[in-house]
């Protein structure tokens, strides 16, 4: 029952992320960047939304989505939305991510999440998958997940792929956030490579 209850919560996207210990006021890290430094802040104050793209350097479906992710970044660049490429797989290294950037193009915000803090908080299970976080307060330090799931409906399952997407779930959800509407959840599961955790 407990498990089902959380599933409902997750699907309803109301889980709250509090990365600041209010008791001690010591910021925790979300993960670390490709220089090995901890990332403690995902968005500047005043941000309306943070979009996380969970990707993997060796996942072909994830790689094929990179141009679409870039299109979304560009599309919302002027609207106070922060975008992060999150590499959640255990085994991803800063050097490997650098090589991936060299092949697929540079990205401003990159985060490695080997301890699955963001994975656990957003409930993503595969790459590529996305999540939208919104700040609870203007300081952007307390975040709430309002969406997690597929980017669009291009893949129905591995091997069943549309020529092009007919429904852009993530794009619609970002627009909902920016227009302060109720955020529509994805209409189908995310399809890709399973996220690798600790052995």
């Amino acid at each position: 029952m407990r498990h089902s209850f959380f599933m409902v919560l997750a699907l309803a996207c109301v889980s709250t992320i509090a990365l600041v210990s209010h008791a001690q006021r010591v910021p925790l890290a979300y993960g670390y960047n490709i220089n090995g430094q901890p990332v403690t802040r995902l968005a500047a104050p005043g941000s309306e939304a943070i979009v996380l793209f969970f990707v993997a350097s060796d996942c072909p479906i994830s790689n094929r989505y990179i141009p679409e992710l870039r299109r979304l970044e560009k599309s919302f660049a002027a609207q106070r939305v922060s975008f992060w490429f999150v590499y959640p797989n255990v085994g991803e290294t800063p050097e490997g991510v650098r090589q991936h950037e060299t092949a697929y193009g540079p990205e401003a915000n990159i985060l490695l999440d080997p301890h699955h803090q963001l994975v656990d908080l957003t409930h993503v299970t595969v790459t590529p998958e996305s999540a939208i976080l919104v700040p609870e307060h203007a300081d952007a330090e307390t975040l709430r997940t309002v969406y997690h799931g597929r980017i669009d409906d291009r893949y129905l399952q591995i091997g069943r792929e549309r020529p092009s997407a007919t429904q852009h779930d993530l794009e619609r959800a970002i627009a909902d956030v920016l227009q302060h509407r109720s955020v529509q959840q994805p209409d189908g599961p995310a399809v890709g490579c399973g996220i690798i955790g600790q052995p």
Partner: protein
Amino acid sequence: MTRRSANHLPVTLLGTAALLTLLAQLPHARVRAATGPVTFNRQIAPILYNHCSGCHHPGGSGPFSLLSYADAKRWGTTIRTVTQTHYMPPWLPEPGFGNFADSRRLSDEDLSLIKMWVEAGMPEGESAETPKPPIFSKDWQLGPPDLILRVESPLQVPASGTDLFRNFILPVPITQTRYIRAMEIKPGAPRVVHHANVLIDRTASLRRQHPNDWKQGIPGMELTVDSGESFDPDSHFLFWKPDSPALIEPSGMPWRLDPGNDLILNMHLKPTGKPETVQATVGLYFSDKPATAHPMLLQLEHDSALDIPAGDAAFVIEDHLKLPIDVDVLGVYPHAHYLGKKMEAYAILPNGAKKWLILIRDWDIDRQSVYRFQSPVFLPKNSVLYMRYTYDNSKANIRNPNSPPIRVKAGNRSVDEMGHLWLQVLPHALPNSNQDPRLLLEQAWMQNNLRKDPDDHTALYNLASVETISGDYTSAETLYRRVLARTPDDVRTLTALGTALDGAGNWQQAQAEYQKALTADPENTDARFDLAHLEFKHGSYAEAEEEYRRLLVETPKDASAHNELGAIFSATNRPTDAQHEFETAIALDPGNFDALYNLAGIEADNSNLPRATELLQQALKQKDDPDAHQLLGNIYAQSGMLADALEQFKAVQLLRPHDTVPHRQLAQIYSQMGQLPDAISEQSAALAIDPGNADDWNNLGVFHARNGDKASARKAFERALTLNPQHTAARANLARL
């Protein structure tokens, strides 16, 4: 004579999967009990190495490697998912509906083992049990090729977007005919290339259509190329998919490349998320022997019936073709675009039995392939081939390129459809006939196309060409005129009609058609060549010479025109000029049989017998021709090389079994060799064919006399004198007895 055929080259797109129910039926407990715990080292590694690593290795087409325990563990859950759905390994044919070589389908037991292994936490097992992973080399699999062709300009494939279909033209730099026993394609960027087909463009027609942009590759899913002047049907599937090894043809079945041919590499490219550069190379391996078996590609299709309403989830097209001769089916290549769903192909034998060729329940253009049978499928004469394809143009078909669905017809774009079934068949020889059995297949095929579309231009033209080759010039003329009724200025058809009319003996009408063709297109070299040839044949040497000279101004490297001009010089007693033209023709095309033979004749006349011998030997490597054997036999006989002469005349006799000449010549040689019984036998054979020749009777009498059989000699001389009372030799011989 000219001929054109349409070689529609398939092309493709996206992915599929079929849900399976097999695992529920498997005796899990038995497998587990029999084998112990499922581990990578014991059970999983052999499955992966045999079925997956061929693509999944560094530099391979698979997106990741599967060559170690770490690899397998990383991708274990994905492997379980894609194998249970039969998405991987890619294999579309339904088991039990055609027995194919190199099936990639995993057995039920393998599927069960993979599932159990993943669910048990993917244990590694004992290291002592680890099999050695396969080794993949970047080198050519068969060693250095005899010829390597490289695409001229690399293509930049963008990071994203829809799939690309590109035709790269590869000119073939050869100066003599080559027979290809094997080919390997290195696509350049294997993860981008979904599949590739190679077409032989006999006349470099695509390159001529795109003189300025051919090096960049020509976009398009399917192609039509010009097959050239002679009956030369496509014969081989030259298909590449990601794990294709070097394509080795069966013994006796190499494919042919002539000087001037192009290869066209038709590639389906899929963006990977980052920009990629594709520059393919093709390695060719030569055979020193021409083909002894001649397969042919046949096609069933019904594109004209493709008119699929939007939303129709089960639209069906069908085609059938009755086989006029016995054949062995060697392989099949089904093809549709994104709406194709179910493909059925089978034959109904004359006894009513149904023989499946292939069944695909869930077509996926992304995973198309040529399927070769494990052993040839024999279909007797009068078997009927059937094709039945079902299309899903509903919204539920996720591969539907049109959203919302729209009415779809046949076409070359990815949003259009196609429905083709290609078959590679090896026709059996016709009993009691030297006719090429492929002509009968071509005839049946084209008649079938005309049944579906009476105005099918290509079918009318090709059927007319078959009739011309078969000597039915009247039928050919009728068919060509049907083409011209719709396209009156079609130069190719005007020229071909001229050839048919000439064959029928209407040479003045033929001349008029060639002139009409040249009026429509004064640059057309085929029409000018044929007109010149016609004039030469009818003794109009000056006119013929003028036409050939004009032709050679336009195409100075036309070896056949040089040869024909040489023949005119020979006919008009200008041997030095003739020799020069024949030499030029041979320099341009060392395998030009006619020029080799004609020059040999001049050399023989000039008593340059070694050179004549050399030329004829070269000519006979190109073609097993009775005239060349006969001339070479004469030269050997003249040189006193009687055993060699005998061999040549025997070859003539085999090629011309109803001709008296080789028997006579054999008789003369046997006589010179002192083998009089053999001489008598051959002379008698000549007389059995033509008993009315007085000279032959006289010669038979001489052989009998020399053999000491005066009675038989007398009878023979008397027979000669009965036939020709004035035969002085026979009379003198009779008197001497």
